[in-house]
């Protein structure tokens, strides 16, 4: 018997708060944490079966052209080499998130520099790599190629469904007491997950088993089957541990299909791992963005108009476009609004979802613009935001499910000591360091994705959770354990979680911050199902049943589960689907950032001194893993503000800095004084857990607080991220 919920109306029960175990929300350690730190959690490539061969992918080194031949013979003659695969089923690029079908195949049409076009398979990894480095490709290079998004020859699409207009922004700008009309740019970003994309493919007759590193297994299974032209019922994907995703593992990627083709051809398991450089070149990048932002405000700083137009890029025919303006329609008020998006078609590495697509870069630019508005209007940046929080979604005219932006701003300002900030830039100096403070709002849309889970309460009083959901380092094992433990009255060590196997019930997958709430709701419903079955056995109604420490308490009886179940199992199934609450209310998460930086007056180097994030995302399922997500997000914000930039060579579009030595992510020394405050909130419009997505919230707008702090420290306004020292240096006064 399955419990099904379509989220058509607000949940007012708030069941979790009524439960007795009191472990939901607590900062428990990850159940699998010890395995991970001891190296005993087995990731995709750790599953190497005896007799497996190794494959190494080979790239094309033209931006656009045709692969006419592959000199297999020379490489086949090398020691250990077993096969050279140049197959038209190989993928041009990974599938976009939730595509559920193969991405573009047919790799002989080369569409970007670094496209992976062949696989060399050998007995050992070293032999395969040697063969791959020897493989001669015959490639033509098409001189008629556009690699720069700002090349006037680039095809530019301006989709109507990404355009919206309310009122008359032009008029509002003219009438405004204060207005901002500026252009901001952000560079392309890489996901840079610690575990590179890696798969082992093994066939048994027509059945394919893939050990992979993926975020969205049900979709990945469909994509893999479609790419291979086989029935998806013959495909099983296993990914119990995933070493980071950040969007880069939403869709099936090149190595999986290559491994499957090779394994079929050779009749042995084949392992293929992408090198770091191949991940940079072959896996999704975040598009660079150019954003024109217009803000119109009255004397009191109250916004009358907001315009946000974005220019992004992608390969020809790719459907994904960085949703830059996603939070702009609802974050601040203003009657006159304009949103637009333009996509340049360029021959660069495919653009896709990377770390909070949309808000990460879009809100960052908007929040720098707000700082500029604060500057010209003479209104404190905090106060300016407080004056502009709308009481309902100003674009859709619907209420917010919950909006704690005001509280997040006030709590953050108080805790950070915002009142200590000097309103005049460049006035606080400590030795060589100019010190400044900046702040920004955080916002991210909230999503619910259809999800199923099965929970079995075994005769000996242990709950087993089963789903093809993934834990990409985010804490899924922990939060699902807590939900089941709370609902079934079990201590955490009496809950086993089995994830990452497509043979298990179809979950939401991990992406868009929706995993914990979506899959967690499915687990919650499965537990409700079990509770109902226990009530039947005990002859009581659900309201009078208390489950705690492995016992059922009803009326004057307290029985251990083992006694009730008599050695049999109870199986509960949960199934949640999004419904009318998606449209009835605006669901989003909110927060605030406060940053203090030192900018070196000699060199322009910016070093973060401290940073606070305050976040509201409904119920916090696990205070520790939620905090870790926010710390990670803020760290990405530091990177976005100061360091990260995927550099394309303008001549052929190739990625120049394709490793972690030269693609600069923050190191420990860059991440100092981070603090996170999580606000207490319940949001029954979201789901019966009253929890919302938190994974990406900490990125959205974070960089703006740092860039705004640089302005406060120096008076230098950086509108082209990252704010590397050369951009700050230009505006610094001469040395005295």
């Amino acid at each position: 018997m399955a419990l099904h919920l379509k989220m058509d109306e607000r949940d007012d029960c708030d069941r979790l708060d009524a439960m007795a175990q009191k472990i939901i929300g607590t900062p428990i350690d990850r159940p699998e944490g010890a395995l991970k730190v001891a190296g005993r959690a087995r990731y995709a490539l750790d599953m190497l079966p005896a007799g497996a061969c190794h494959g190494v992918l080979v790239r094309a080194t033209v931006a656009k052209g045709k692969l006419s031949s592959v000199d297999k013979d020379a490489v086949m003659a090398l020691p250990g080499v077993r096969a050279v695969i140049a197959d038209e089923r190989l993928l041009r690029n990974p599938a976009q998130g939730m595509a559920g079908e193969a991405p573009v195949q047919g790799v002989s049409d080369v569409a970007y520099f670094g496209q992976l076009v062949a696989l060399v398979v050998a007995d050992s990894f070293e032999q395969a790599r040697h063969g791959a480095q020897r493989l001669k490709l015959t490639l033509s290079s098409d001189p008629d190629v556009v690699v720069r998004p700002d090349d006037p020859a680039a095809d530019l699409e301006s989709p109507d469904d990404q355009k919206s207009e309310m009122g008359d922004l032009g008029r509002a700008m003219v009438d405004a007491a204060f207005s901002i009309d500026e252009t901001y740019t952000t560079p392309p970003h890489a996901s840079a997950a610690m575990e590179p994309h890696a798969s082992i493919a093994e066939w048994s007759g027509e059945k394919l088993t893939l050990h992979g590193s993926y975020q969205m297994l049900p979709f990945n299974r469909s994509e893999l089957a479609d790419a291979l032209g086989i029935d998806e019922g013959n495909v099983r994907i296993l990914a119990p541990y995933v070493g980071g995703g950040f969007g880069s593992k939403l869709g099936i990627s090149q190595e999986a299909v290559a491994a499957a083709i090779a394994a079929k051809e050779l009749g042995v398991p084949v392992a293929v791992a992408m090198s770091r450089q191949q991940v940079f070149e072959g896996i999704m990048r975040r598009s660079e963005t150019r954003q024109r932002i217009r803000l119109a405000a009255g004397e009191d700083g109250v916004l009358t108009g907001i315009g946000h137009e974005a220019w992004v890029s992608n390969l020809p025919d790719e459907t994904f476009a960085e949703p830059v303006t996603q939070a702009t329609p609802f974050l601040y008020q203003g009657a006159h609004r304009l949103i637009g998006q333009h996509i340049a078609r360029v021959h660069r590495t495919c653009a896709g979802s990377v770390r909070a697509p949309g808000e990460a870069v879009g809100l960052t630019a908007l929040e720098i613009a707000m700082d500029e508005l604060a500057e010209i209007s003479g209104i404190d940046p905090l106060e300016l935001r407080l004056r502009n929080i709308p009481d309902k979604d100003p674009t859709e005219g619907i209420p917010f499910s919950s909006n704690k932006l005001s509280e997040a701003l006030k709590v953050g300002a108080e805790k950070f000591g915002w009142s200590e900030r000097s309103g005049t830039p460049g006035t606080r100096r400590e030795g060589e360091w100019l010190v400044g403070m900046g702040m920004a709002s955080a916002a991210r849309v909230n999503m619910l994705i259809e999800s199923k889970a099965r929970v079995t309460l075994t005769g000996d009083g242990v709950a087993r959770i089963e789903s093809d959901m993934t834990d990409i380092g985010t804490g899924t094992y922990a939060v699902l354990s807590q939900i089941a433990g709370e609902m079934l009255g079990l201590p955490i060590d009496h809950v086993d979680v089995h994830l990452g196997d497509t043979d298990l019930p179809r979950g939401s997958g991990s992406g868009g911050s929706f995993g914990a709430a979506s899959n967690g709701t499915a687990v919650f419903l499965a537990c409700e199902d079990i509770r109902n079955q226990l009530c039947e056995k005990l002859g009581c109604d659900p309201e009078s049943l208390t489950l705690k420490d492995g016992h059922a308490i009803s009326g004057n009886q307290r029985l251990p589960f083992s006694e009730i179940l008599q050695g049999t199992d109870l199986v509960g199934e949960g199934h949640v689907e999004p419904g009318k609450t998606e449209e009835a209310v605006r669901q989003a998460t909110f927060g605030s950032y406060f940053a203090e930086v030192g900018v070196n007056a000699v060199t322009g180097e910016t070093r973060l001194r401290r940073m606070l994030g305050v976040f509201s995302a409904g119920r916090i399922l696990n205070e520790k893993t939620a905090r870790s997500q926010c710390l990670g997000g803020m760290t990405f914000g530091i990177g976005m503000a100061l360091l990260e930039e995927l550099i394309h060579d303008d001549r052929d579009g190739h990625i120049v800095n394709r490793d972690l030595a030269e693609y600069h992510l923050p190191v420990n020394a860059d991440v100092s004084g981070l603090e996170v405050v999580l606000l207490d909130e319940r949001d029954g419009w979201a789901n019966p857990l009253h929890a919302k997505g938190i994974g990406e919230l900490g990125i959205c707008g974070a960089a703006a607080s740092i860039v705004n702090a640089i302005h406060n420290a120096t008076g230098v306004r950086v509108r082209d991220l990252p704010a590397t020292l050369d951009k700050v240096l230009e505006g610094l006064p001469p040395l005295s």
Partner: protein
Amino acid sequence: MIPFDYQRAASAAEATGLARDGATFIAGGTNLLDLMKLEVMAPSRLVDINRLDLGGIEDTTGGGLRIGALVRNSDLAGDPRVRSSYPVLARALLAGASGQLRNKATTGGNLLQRTRCYYFYDTAMPCNKREPGSGCQAIGGATRLHAIFGTSDHCIATHPSDMAVAMRALDASIEIEDSAGNRRSVAISEFYRLPGTTPHIETVLKPGELITAVLLPPPGGTRQAYRKVRDRASYAFALVSVAGVVEMADGRMKRVALAFGGVGPQPWRNAEVEALLEGKAPSAELFEQAAGLLVAKARTQAGNAFKVPLLQRVLSATLNELTKG
């Protein structure tokens, strides 16, 4: 990676004897192994010198230090004599790489590390340093890391070492042994070659020659500083760096040695700048004049033009720090 032979040498004579026909010495291997995996370097043989007796730091009769070629960067940075008498060297070492890398990397290897030019690392790109005669793709490309001094139309790469910059300011010399067992000493100013038309030839070392030690002259009564400017707080190569060694007498700069990293194909020095400063009393105007002289002959690309004002500011600030009080 191209298959290669591996031989462990028991003596310097054996090592130099084995180092022929495309062989390369390996010590820490922190740079070499990466380059071999990428096939940027493809030695026919690795001659492992880690077991040679080249590990100590000794006082010299002249009052300086003799640093064995196999002394690890961490050990050198932590040596009490280096910390007290050659702080510019200790600071430069600690500004480089990461703790793990410094534990592995050696003094000789650090001197010989290869450039971090993006185009050198990508075998699909033309690069005169990697493949003589193929061209330089860095020119006109992404050049944030690249040199503004000493470049040629064939190469604009920098030498990435921090340690070598400090050694250049300290007037170190490099002790070299050839396959006949002869030892000679080469001033660090003569050790590196400018790229010219042969950027693949980076030093005066001849095939088979082994660095056995670095010799530091006595420190004298000097003030020392190393300042490194980089994009992130740690684990990044210098955009520019300055090693300064100044001896003051009667309120004047008696002796000045300044070496610069991140700006040249070798740790860079400019004798005219030092001559301008020597014998004069420190002042902001003088430092500005020196900084202007330093960059007068800079040749920049679009991506590294910022190094000119940056270097001037860093030089002035470093001189100020070295001469105040």
